[in-house]
């Protein structure tokens, strides 16, 4: 598994971790829970830099922002009252859907994002919540949107940098949220996942809607056209169908060992519909 690993470092701060990473010159890998790095078994990894003691294990709520340290485990997110109370608890729900309990006890939010999988449940939710991802490199820290970060993450371009924090703006009151995942089994990765948020005005018109989908493009995506189409319209079954049509047009799924592209596209409709209906039900809107 870690056959080629020769040394193991446990820096006590992000600064030390970055220095070690720089010195490792491409042969060092940052590791937290290790659940992805271990399975990947990349033979080019000679040195592991364990950042679990670097002070990044926290969940804080300050004013209008909830910040989560990169090495917070999925199990901690699942159990946290702050995360459970945030946006209908969809991030806690996504964390609970990540792998098995043994995985969730080790796997961290930062690691999940660093892995750059388009199917990561937490990433879809963070995209819907418009979270910012704080990346530290030797020159300082920079916050970017998840969308901006995803393609470099996927291509492993962050080898001299480190995700340190996820900052979630607390959503406006009145919004209702829903997360749905479809996987072959309880512990398998998503075939499709959807995170949606919805707020209606007093006359059941859409004030805003957010729809994010995972595993249906090369990164998690926001269904921007569907969101635009819905704004201001009365929320009813016809609108849901229109949104689902638009979502099915926006996604670009592929066929792989788990499912065909057509199946994924159809499931995008099904899951979007369920998510929106759940948001509406939570608003108290009867369709």
């Amino acid at each position, binding site marked *: 598994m870690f056959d*080629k690993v*020769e*040394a*193991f470092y*446990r820096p006590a701060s992000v600064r030390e971790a970055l220095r070690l990473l720089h*010195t490792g010159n491409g042969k060092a890998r940052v590791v937290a829970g290790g659940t992805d790095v271990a*399975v990947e078994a990349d033979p080019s990894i000679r040195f*592991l830099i364990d950042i679990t003691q670097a002070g990044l294990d926290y969940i804080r709520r300050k004013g209008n922002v909830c910040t989560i340290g990169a090495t917070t485990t999925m199990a901690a997110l699942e159990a946290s009252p702050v995360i459970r109370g945030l946006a209908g608890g969809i991030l806690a729900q996504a964390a609970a859907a990540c792998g098995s309990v*043994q995985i969730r006890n080790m796997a961290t939010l930062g690691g999940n994002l660093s892995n750059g999988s388009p199917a990561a449940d937490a990433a879809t939710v963070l995209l819907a919540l418009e979270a910012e991802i704080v990346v530290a490199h030797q020159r300082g820290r920079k916050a970017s949107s998840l969308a901006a970060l995803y393609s470099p993450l996927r291509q492993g371009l962050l080898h001299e940098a480190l995700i340190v924090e996820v900052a979630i703006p607390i959503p406006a009151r009145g919004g209702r949220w829903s997360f749905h995942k479809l996987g072959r089994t309880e512990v398998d990765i998503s075939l499709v996942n959807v995170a949606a948020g919805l707020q209606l005005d007093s006359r059941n018109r859409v004030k805003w809607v957010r729809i994010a989908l995972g595993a249906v493009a090369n990164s998690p995506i926001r269904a921007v056209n569907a969101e635009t189409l819905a704004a201001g319209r009365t929320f009813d079954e016809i609108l849901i169908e229109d949104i689902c049509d638009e979502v099915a047009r926006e996604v670009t799924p592929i066929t792989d060992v788990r499912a065909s592209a057509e199946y994924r596209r159809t499931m995008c409709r099904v899951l979007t519909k369920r998510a929106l209906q759940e948001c509406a039900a939570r608003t108290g809107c009867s369709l």
Partner: protein
Amino acid sequence: MSSKKDSELPVPPKSGFSRRGFIRGVGIGSGALGTGLLETEAAAAAPATLGPGPVPITLNINGKPVNLTVEPSVTLIDAMRNYLDLTGAKRVCDRATCGACTVIMAGKTVYACTVLAIDAQGKNIETIEGLATGSALHPVSKAFYDNDAQQCGYCTPGFVMACKGFIDEHPSPTEEDVKHGLGGNLCRCGTYMGIRKAVLQAAKEMKGAVKNG
């Protein structure tokens, strides 16, 4: 993944890349890092740098400290099976999928195949070997026996530890909780129905034990 047989000891990695070069780079070459890093870290519970080469470590397994010397690349499952003769936990998939290597570390169930032995230092590790009290079976083991919750038995040690960890966190589980909480273990014989019953029985008995005790 690895063609290594279970009985073989992990071979020290051979590589063209110079470890010394890296260490020099980290330790001396970049003056800012220097030995200062090691000194400031010395106070911490675990040393900041482990390896290269075999590292003496202490694992706290089933309440007893055990000393061993392992390469940094050795996983907890290999350390237990190949160095300590604790062969209850099984190395099956070796990629965090099947759960046969499940142990409880610091009160949480983990896959021993994806935890490095050196990273398991300072944490209380519970394995199947430490579960029974003398000849008296632990309630979870007994519930497996009572409910015929195994066939070939190869997944059983991992399943029993996963069940114990699960019940410790969910003393009164519903059947849905059981399905969610034990999704991380596979049984190729398909004894899941028996296992589900066993978990519910063990949870009841363990709660009774707590009340009586």
